[in-house]
């Protein structure tokens, strides 16, 4: 309801704005939109777009937006230009100017107007300029940003007009910056340029740097010098942000490593099973996510945004069930022979990989990002992606839940009892085989959860698990076998160290240094960061 009311308000605003434009402009716009369909090549199309932008008529915006999105079509017969939305083999058509429906027709009768990057850039500028007067502040803000990026001198006039009317402070700032950018990039006297320079310098950030870099190339010495000074200042500021950025990236990498390793910290760390099939449990989790999304895509498209949340418990259960089956079928015959579990689980990992390859095919499967996990936001000069942020949060939640479960529940108590002293635990009436199966299932289930998270940032392919298995072992060993806190600290330490090394040494050497560091570290602390103490150590 609220939305509808808003729409009405918007329509009303548009209706109020419309009379401002002369009636001739409407006819003109229509013929210019028609010209979009007649362009023979990208250059002609760009000219047509520029002509549309020059009218200043915001009625052209839907057509331009559709063109940018690749949804503008020309009819093969007659050449009418229409906006089309694909419905199977048909197109649902609307008139770009009036917004009225023009029926649904077979797609075969229409040709899509193609655009390339250069055109998309031109379109972005044109749409920006045309929406500067939009009644919605956020649209105006985006328009100002677009004008800032394109710095098209043609937009200056309309920008001035918009600036004069603007009442929202933040939008105003964006418009002033856009204006300064146009002045700096284009023709203006030195005094104007120097004033503009100050505004840009205040804005800071990478994009300003790009602009300033351009300025110093073709400007009078005074302006060039001032621009150089501004560049230096911004760069110095960015240096500090770079350090902070490395830390955030390190934490993000650490959380991925934590998720990958934490299941292993249970199956390997707590139970002592050298579980080479751990990576495949992660893979199973990722494929479960894929399956869930497949079902949602075909049957309940509205639920797509929560697909990940549905996948989480399912992945836990599926991977957990596979884990229990493995424990009952194979591992339980191998207790007390840890090195042999390595061989059996290695064989198992080969089988699981090939099974997935046979069932799902060897190619990557697409797992989409829900809207709340895509995109990025800026804190100062660092851009953080939502996906990565949620993974950090998720990793910490899983860790906390696992700690709680081990420390505060009867099952956790029994698990700790069995792993510390199996015979004693059995004498106290704990069903050790059942506890073993549950523990292994828990570790595998947590690996499945990791798979859901990793499906958001990595390939979903049969090789998914292989990429994480070695890192996971390194982290568990580094942190200390049998200690979840060690895994947590280990994962974040290695993540941050890696990210600090990467810019200097490159990705490959950075990783080699980390491995050598682990080897040397183990010499100093042969049982990892947080070693278990007491009799249990010398079994």
């Amino acid at each position: 309801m609220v939305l509808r009311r808003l729409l009405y308000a918007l329509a009303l605003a548009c209706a109020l704005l419309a009379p401002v434009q002369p009636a001739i402009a409407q006819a003109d716009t229509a013929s210019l939109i028609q010209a979009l369909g007649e362009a023979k090549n990208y250059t002609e199309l760009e000219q047509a777009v520029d002509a549309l932008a020059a009218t200043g008529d915001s009625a052209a915006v839907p057509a331009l937006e559709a063109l940018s999105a690749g949804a503008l079509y020309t009819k093969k017969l007659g050449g009418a230009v229409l906006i089309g939305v694909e419905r199977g083999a048909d197109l649902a058509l609307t008139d770009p100017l009036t917004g009225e429906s023009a029926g649904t027709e077979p797609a075969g009768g229409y040709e899509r107007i193609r655009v390339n990057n250069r055109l998309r850039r031109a379109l972005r500028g044109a749409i920006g300029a045309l929406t500067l007067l939009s009644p919605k502040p956020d649209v105006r803000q985006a328009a100002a940003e677009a004008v800032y990026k394109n710095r098209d001198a043609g937009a200056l006039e309309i920008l001035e007009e918009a600036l004069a009317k603007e009442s929202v402070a933040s939008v105003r700032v964006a418009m002033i910056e856009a204006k300064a950018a146009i002045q700096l990039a284009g023709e203006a006297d030195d005094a104007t340029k120097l004033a503009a320079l100050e505004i840009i310098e205040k804005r800071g950030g990478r994009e300003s740097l790009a602009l300033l870099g351009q300025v110093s190339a073709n400007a009078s010495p005074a302006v060039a010098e001032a621009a150089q000074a501004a560049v230096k200042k911004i760069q110095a500021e960015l240096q500090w942000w770079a350090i902070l950025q490395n830390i955030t990236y390190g934490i993000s990498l650490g959380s991925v490593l934590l998720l990958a390793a934490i299941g292993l910290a249970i199956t390997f760390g707590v139970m002592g099973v050298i579980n080479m099939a751990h990576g495949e449990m992660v893979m199973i989790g990722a494929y479960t996510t894929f399956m869930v999304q497949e079902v949602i895509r075909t049957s309940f498209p509205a639920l797509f945004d929560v697909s990940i949340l549905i996948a989480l418990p399912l992945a836990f259960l599926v991977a957990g069930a596979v884990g229990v089956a493995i424990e009952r079928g194979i591992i339980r015959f191998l207790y007390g022979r840890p090195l042999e579990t390595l061989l059996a689980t290695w064989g198992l990992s080969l089988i699981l990989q090939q099974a997935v390859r046979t069932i799902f095919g060897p190619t990557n499967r697409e797992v989409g990002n829900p809207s709340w996990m895509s995109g990025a936001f800026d804190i100062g000069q660092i851009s953080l992606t939502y996906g990565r942020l949620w993974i950090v949060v998720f990793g910490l939640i899983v860790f906390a839940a696992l700690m709680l479960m081990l420390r505060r529940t009867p099952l956790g108590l029994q698990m700790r009892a069995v792993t510390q002293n199996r015979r004693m635990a059995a004498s106290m009436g704990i069903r050790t085989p059942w506890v073993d199966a549950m523990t292994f299932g828990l570790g595998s289930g947590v690996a499945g959860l990791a798979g859901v998270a990793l499906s958001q940032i990595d390939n979903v392919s049969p090789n998914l698990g292989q990429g994480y298995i070695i890192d996971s072992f390194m982290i568990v060993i580094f942190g200390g076998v049998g200690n979840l806190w060690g895994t947590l600290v280990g994962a974040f330490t290695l993540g941050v160290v890696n990210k600090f090394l990467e810019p200097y040494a490159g990705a490959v050497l950075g990783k080699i240094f980390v491995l050598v560091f682990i080897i040397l570290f183990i010499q100093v602390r042969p049982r990892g960061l947080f070693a278990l103490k007491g009799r249990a150590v010398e079994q």
Partner: protein
Amino acid sequence: MAGNTGAKFLTGLLVGASMLAGVAVGEARAQDTIKVGILHSLSGTMAISETTLKDVMLMLIEEQNKKGGLLGKKLEAVVVDPASDWPLFAEKARELISVHKVAATFGCWTSVSRKSVLPVFEELNSILFYPVQYEGEESSRNVFYTGAAPNQQAIPAVDYLAKEEGVQRWVLAGTDYVYPRTTNKILETYLKDKGVAAADIMINYTPFGHSDWQSIVAEIKKFGSAGKKTAVVSTINGDANVPFYKELANQGIKAEDIPVVAFSVGEEELAGIDTAPLVGHLAAWNYFMSNETAVNKEFIKQWQTFIKNPKRVTNDPMEAHYIGFNMWVKAVEKAGTIAPDAVIDSLVGVAVPNLTGGMSAMMPNHHITKPVLIGEVQADGQFDTVWSTPGLVVGDEWSDFLPDSKDLISDWRKPMSCGNFNVKTGKCGGKS
């Protein structure tokens, strides 16, 4: 260890050895079919790309048999799995040639697998068709390169970016192995010849399967903010692409700002990603599934029927196999025999239709002529061709932009019959 038990195992060992001999002897079957070897990894890291090529070969062979086979005999595919294990490629190649007596082999993807089997094909004098774009710097009498050489992919792509997008600053990002290294060396020289300053070129290498791209994408962003139009030329391989593109999309690098042109990303790779945020990024290939030619539509239909999946995509290396296989069929028919020497000689000059609507011909340097297409990623995971060369481009095996290879040419026709003839010294290298 009791001695007598030891003896038992040794008998077992002998049995094993004799079984091996059995494998080797089992070749003497009646020659009523012509065997075609398929040497693509079906497991391990490369299975993701190579399995499709195995399937397309099976389809092509099946189609050929429907048309009555070759020289009055049916074709028989011999599939082996070299398991992404490079020494195993050499072993399997030897097995295909000497045990199964295949008439020709279609296979390999990575450069290292080709390098591994190359001596085997030369020693046993058999034929290999190699369908993947590669770094060049090689020409063997026994290998036919149906994928693109750097001049059929990389250089036109860079030209396009410089001309159409006005790019002045270049990031050459690749996986650290020989194809990206060589391609980037060639591109670096090429760009510098065109007047690009060294400071405007950034080269970055990452390991195979690199999955954490945050720092590198941030680095690219930083490099791109120097006031000049910047583009990324990506030779990032295989699995590392999906996380790379996901990171690009998430960090908001749009194609309008910093376009990425890739040489190893095709329809098959994009099938694993949501491409909506990637619209406008580019790829340079010799074939796109979106080509509207009748022959391509027929090929796609055939493929989707064969694989029983109406959504399966086609890609450039598949077309390369399509061309290579048809060339081989034509050459065998021309020679009237499957004897390697005769077929090798008759292959040069053979021309068959490619799927873009032209005729590709096998050149004397064992590379083929191809159109070069630049495509932009669309929201549906397809490429939209935005530029193409006016005619076909001949594959140049010895790059003109590497100091030591610019004087070399290759011509396998008699009487020259040389893969690395030095036009300056007038000598054929590599011969003792």
